[in-house]
């Protein structure tokens, strides 16, 4: 089965929030809700070893998605392309999937009273178009495709970098497919972060 996901090159990302708004505009996401959220992480450390970077987050398309395994109705499922999706008509609103998501990147649709999240813009990709966030990226930092296809945009971008420069958010057995490219130009990758109360666009690493 394909492993479709998004790869973000953080060396390029300028933290402009374009992807966040592109997603909202494309999918009519309600005020206060989002399927895609950009953080500025840090600063961490002291200059000259100070790390600060923009981190766009969204559903990480986990290969062992806990949201799928805990869903009591199968509303959270993986489609034929391997994409984790929500069938809103089956959702009973128990919110287990939201508790089970290691990154808390599933949202609640207040009007429809069910869980929802990034769909990798299936309505666009099925027409050979790019997800809205990838298409609009102002810095050319986002890529979409199948990790298992060496000719996909994601594979080609990842191939330019060494293992050590390719990161994921902390994996607790869920195997996130989404990859973040970040080299030493920026500093230290933080695999576990927590958003600040204010501003909610700031995030800092969680002290272990």
């Amino acid at each position: 089965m394909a492993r479709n996901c998004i790869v973000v090159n953080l060396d390029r990302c300028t933290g402009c929030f374009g992807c966040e708004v592109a997603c909202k505009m494309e999918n009519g996401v309600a005020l206060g809700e989002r399927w895609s959220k950009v953080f500025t992480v840090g600063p961490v450390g002291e200059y000259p070893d100070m790390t600060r970077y923009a981190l766009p987050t969204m559903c990480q398309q986990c290969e062992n998605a806990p949201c799928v395994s805990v869903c009591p109705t199968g509303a959270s499922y993986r489609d034929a392309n391997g994409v984790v999706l929500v069938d809103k008509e089956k959702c009973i609103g128990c919110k287990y999937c939201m508790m089970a998501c290691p990154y808390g990147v599933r949202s609640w649709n207040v009007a429809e009273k069910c869980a929802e999240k990034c769909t990798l813009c299936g309505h666009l990709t099925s027409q050979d178009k790019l997800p809205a966030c990838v298409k609009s990226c102002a810095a050319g930092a986002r890529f979409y495709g199948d990790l298992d296809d060496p000719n996909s945009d994601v594979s080609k971008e990842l191939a330019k970098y060494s293992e050590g420069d390719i990161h994921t958010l902390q994996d607790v057995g869920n195997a996130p497919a989404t990859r973040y490219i970040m080299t030493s130009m920026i500093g230290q990758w933080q695999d576990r972060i927590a958003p600040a109360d204010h501003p909610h666009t700031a995030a800092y690493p969680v002290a272990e």
Partner: protein
Amino acid sequence: MEIQWSLVLFTALSGAGAWLVACAGLDAFKGLAKKAVVPAVIAGIVLIVVGGIASATHLSHVDRIMAVLAHPAPGIFLEALLLGIDVVVAAAFLVLYKRNASEGVLKGLGIAAVVMAAVFSYACGSSYMMSSQLAWNTIALPLGYLGTALAAGTALWYLLCAVFKEEAAALSFAATEVLIGAVAALVTSLAYGFMAGVTGGDSAVLFWVGVVVCGGVVPLACGVFGMKKTDGALPLAVVAVAGAFIGSVAFRMLMWIASIALMSLFGVGI
């Protein structure tokens, strides 16, 4: 996370109800409490069902609940299944008890009731074990659900024995069961507290006062006194029930309040 009261009530009430039925069923081996058995099983069934209804109020689309039954999986499906089986076992026991079925049959159902109570109250907690929730991802959590439910159930049994003025032997044995329940609650909740690291900080009061003292020490004391002083059973039982239920609810509240998400990036309130 915000306290999900419908889920707290569900596991607290249904868990207590299941263990109440189990205590009644255990009496098939001892034959000590004649009058309290039927009311206990009825009360137990009622608690289990009320708890089940409470859980349904958590859902936003209850009408789609049939989709759960069509999708076997650990979690809600399993809990619903175990709940249903437990109600069936309890009902069967009740009917057969009233019809004076053989000792062997009643003992068998009694064991079934105990097993169901243990499995069900454990399952109520195990569905929360998720790698995404650092303070829930320990076996001490479902064990704590079991232990606190056990304390609440045995305390209720003790209360019913006292209300229905059972004899001293029955009362003393019930108090012993309360003691066992209290020890189970105390040990499992302390274990959870330390495994999950929720004994201090903002949760300190809830944990030490609500869970440990009310939910463990108080029923423990009631059980110890009750084993010897059978004539003061009623007030002891009331206190034991109060303490055990406070502890049971407090334990469940603690789980929500002291939850530690691996990452809660979108900050969506549950």
